[in-house]
């Protein structure tokens, strides 16, 4: 035991590996990247996402001679665990993870634990196309400053969807949702927090119901949690008896919601991915009678980011890949409803006419929402609210 700990501390004390330092000049980085293999750790649960990454792999191979390998994860935390274990085992320069698709919560903890490489995003030529000076969405993640440690990739926003053949008056707000649930018992549910889509539902409801909305955009420690959240718990207490399985059981995640919609158990659900419904209709998972919409007061939206671990073995190539994914061509490809259907993070004002045309040519998705409807974006609360809401929810509703 003692010797194990000794080995642990010795290995941690080793200096950082000196090899493969990343150059400061972009052309030199591209040159370094040639012939490298990038292990891109990204959630692999959706074939549309996987196909988009496969397309990108073909492109970077052709353009930059980079071998992009999609490591399909069931949960992003698997990659995080890997990096933690590598640091614990003293591996500081030959990490197995080169690029991770992270969410705001993962990012905040990775950054705090010093597990990220960077700042590197400022070096990407395509980053300026996002208009970072005027676009806080790409420089903060759950209100945590990004500080060049992760590159934006695509935008996501909560959309609700309902089945016209089963219900015809979908709710446009949380109070309406309560009324709707009373009339349609057992036909709505949300994933069990701390699953992130479930927590997102709590945040969405809280933003809409609380009397002190400003408190949500600062650290939770600075506000009176009980007072700010009281309307939320009151709402949930009333809502739960009318949920699916009377709230004695909750779906696991977004895909389970979609499956329950497809089976006809639910007639109203929601997703963090505006193109989910059109993709699912095309894939025979949902009937063509399903429509998506945005709540009257807008819905929570955020940006997906890409990060590089501190010990990644192929940092230059990872940067080149991230830069390619930010290119107008790759962004337009991913926004196409037949491919992935996420929304671009690029600012149209920064593009030239030819690049703009790529986006204007995109068809609007069937059963989906139009980009115009997605204008009403509500910002994510400060990252610290996530943990506090999840803990409070579990205390109230789990295990008695």
């Amino acid at each position: 035991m003692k010797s194990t700990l000794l080995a642990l501390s010795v290995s941690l004390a080793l200096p950082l590996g000196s090899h493969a330092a990343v150059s400061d000049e972009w052309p030199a980085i591209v040159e370094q990247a040639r012939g490298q293999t990038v292990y891109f750790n990204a959630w692999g649960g959706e074939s549309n996402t996987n196909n988009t990454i496969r397309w990108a792999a073909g492109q970077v191979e052709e353009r930059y001679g980079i071998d992009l390998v999609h490591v399909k994860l069931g949960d992003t935390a698997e990659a995080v665990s890997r990096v933690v274990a590598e640091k614990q085992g003293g591996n500081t320069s030959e990490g197995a993870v080169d690029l991770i698709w992270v969410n705001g919560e993962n990012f905040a903890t990775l950054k705090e634990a010093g597990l990220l490489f960077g700042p590197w995003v400022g070096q990407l030529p395509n980053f300026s196309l996002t208009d970072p000076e005027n676009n806080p969405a790409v420089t903060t993640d759950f209100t945590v400053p990004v500080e060049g440690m992760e590159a934006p990739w695509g935008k996501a926003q909560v959309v609700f969807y309902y089945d016209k053949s089963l219900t015809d008056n979908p709710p446009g707000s949380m109070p309406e949702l309560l009324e709707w649930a009373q009339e349609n018992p057992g036909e709505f549910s949300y994933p069990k927090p701390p699953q992130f889509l479930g927590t997102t539902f709590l945040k969405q409801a809280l933003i809409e119901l609380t009397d002190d909305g400003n408190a949500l955009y600062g650290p939770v420690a600075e506000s009176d949690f009980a007072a700010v959240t009281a309307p939320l718990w009151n709402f949930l207490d009333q809502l739960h008896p009318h949920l699916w399985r009377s709230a004695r059981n909750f779906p696991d995640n977004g895909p389970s919601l979609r499956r329950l919609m497809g089976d006809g158990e639910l007639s109203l659900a929601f997703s963090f991915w505006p193109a989910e419904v059109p993709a699912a209709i095309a894939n025979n998972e949902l009937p063509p009678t399903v429509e998506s919409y945005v709540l009257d007061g807008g819905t929570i939206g955020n940006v997906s980011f890409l990060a590089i671990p501190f010990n990644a073995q192929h940092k230059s190539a990872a940067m080149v890949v991230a830069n390619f994914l930010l290119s107008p061509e790759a962004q337009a490809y991913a926004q196409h409803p037949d491919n992935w259907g996420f929304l671009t993070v690029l600012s149209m004002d920064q593009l030239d006419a030819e690049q703009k045309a790529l986006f204007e040519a995109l068809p609007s998705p069937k059963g989906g929402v139009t980009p115009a409807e997605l204008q009403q974006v509500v910002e994510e609360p400060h990252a610290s609210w996530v943990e506090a809401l999840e803990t409070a929810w579990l205390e109230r509703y789990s295990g008695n």
Partner: protein
Amino acid sequence: MLRLAPWIIVLSLVLPVVGGTLLTVPPAFGYLPVLGGDDWSFRPWLELAETPGILRSVAVSFGSGLLATGLALIIVFLFLSTIANTRFDRWIQRLISPLLSIPHAAAAFGFAFLIAPSGLLLRWLSPSLTGFERPPDWLLLNDPFGVSLISGLVVKEIPFLLLVSLAGLPQLNAGQRVMLARSLGYLPRVAWFKAVAPALYPLIRLPVYAVLAFATSTVDVAMILGPNLPSTLSVQVVHWFNDPDLTRRFLASAGALLQLLVTASALSVWWGLEKLIGKGFNAWVAGGNRQRSDGTLWLAGRGLMLIATLLPVLGLFALALNSVAGFWRFPDAWPGSVTLSHWLQALPDLARPFWMTMVIATAASVLAVAMVLAALEHEQRLNRPATRALWLLYLPLLVPQVGFLSGITVLSQMAGQAPALWVVVWAHLLFVLPYVYLTLVEPYRRFDFRWVILGRSLGLSVNQAFWRIRLPMMLRPVLTAMALGVAISVSQYLPTQMLGGGRIVTVTTEAVALSSGGDRRLIGVWAMVQAITPFIGFVLALLIPRLLWKERRGMQAL
């Protein structure tokens, strides 16, 4: 060299398991400098005690494990007491291997789709018999008492217990025992329970323990079938390990150790029950009562086994159906349209993981068989058990995976080992070896040693006797053990993903990643592939001896 075999086995299994488990101890007591834990404390344990619903989580893990194991064992024994080489019996025995080869997660998915309120069974009955136009809002799946979890586990563990029982039975002369008891006036089933069961149980005891340990600590099955408010302890621990908040890893480590305690106490309770029931059983046998309830036993044994076999077969059928289904909503009994698009979509992704799976599975099971044969041959030559330490072989099956796998990853990093094929093969070996040993040990010890003596008298050396007499005569059990090894290796998810660093892609890592997307059709495709892969192994194990001994009728009977 042969002398070292048992020790090589023990070391290559025990070191990683013990080392991995020990590495979870410091974080469980707050010590993990990488994540800012610089002081030892009981804080993770206090946090664990304050987790909402933790007692319930523990109770469900503990209770469902014991109940599932007990029920599976009872059903297997009831069935064995009625076994009579009828067509039904041969049919069941032939189904064991394919059923064993279905990975747990795939089987659980199939089972869930069968019994859900919008599942296959209710689709078949609705709306004509039930009147349901929409799926009823019933809490059948993921019920808070773990009934669906227990049923799923029972169904999945029966084939394994049946396999080890059937392997053990021949050395008991079960037929003659029953005949003797019947000549004393006992009815056939009662005769079996009084004369065969008490001798059979000790032979399958360790496998039963392995089942119990698995049932109390399963993650994938409990995620799909278990309760979720709160989840079972093992599922909670995995969630904590996966929490974006890295400080949860302290709690997760404490939880992993608690899981170890829960499994250990379930094992000791079982051991206590064994003693208790053994006493009662002895009294019952010695009492000499000629029960008349024989018919009930027969009906129960046959009926329950029929249900337990039909359910997974139907579940697999349901998955296959989903893999080619177009849009298919409750209450339609069949998909409205059939399409190959899900298969065609998956096909380009299939080849690489498939071959990787085959390479790892073959390597792990060949290694395992070689090591086990070496150890057993050594034992035979010594004519006594080589080392009592060989029970340690079961350690990887008895210690919950969540506890030691992350530790092993750290160990491999300390050794400066980048993710590599051999590390993954080794990790698979941890789980393959015990099962290979389990299936091979009885046939090996049962082998009539006089054949070897005869060979020696004809001038063969000890080694020649092994290669030219024993091995050919034991080809069938050796190949079966190898096929089971392949099946076990194919189903490993966590070891592959963690030690392969995500770079080693198998059919199972691919299937699990895709199933997190919840598309039942895609899950159907990958689950079928996952089930077919080990099945190839079982088919080969059956075919090879048949082809090899085509001209030698005497060998065919072996």
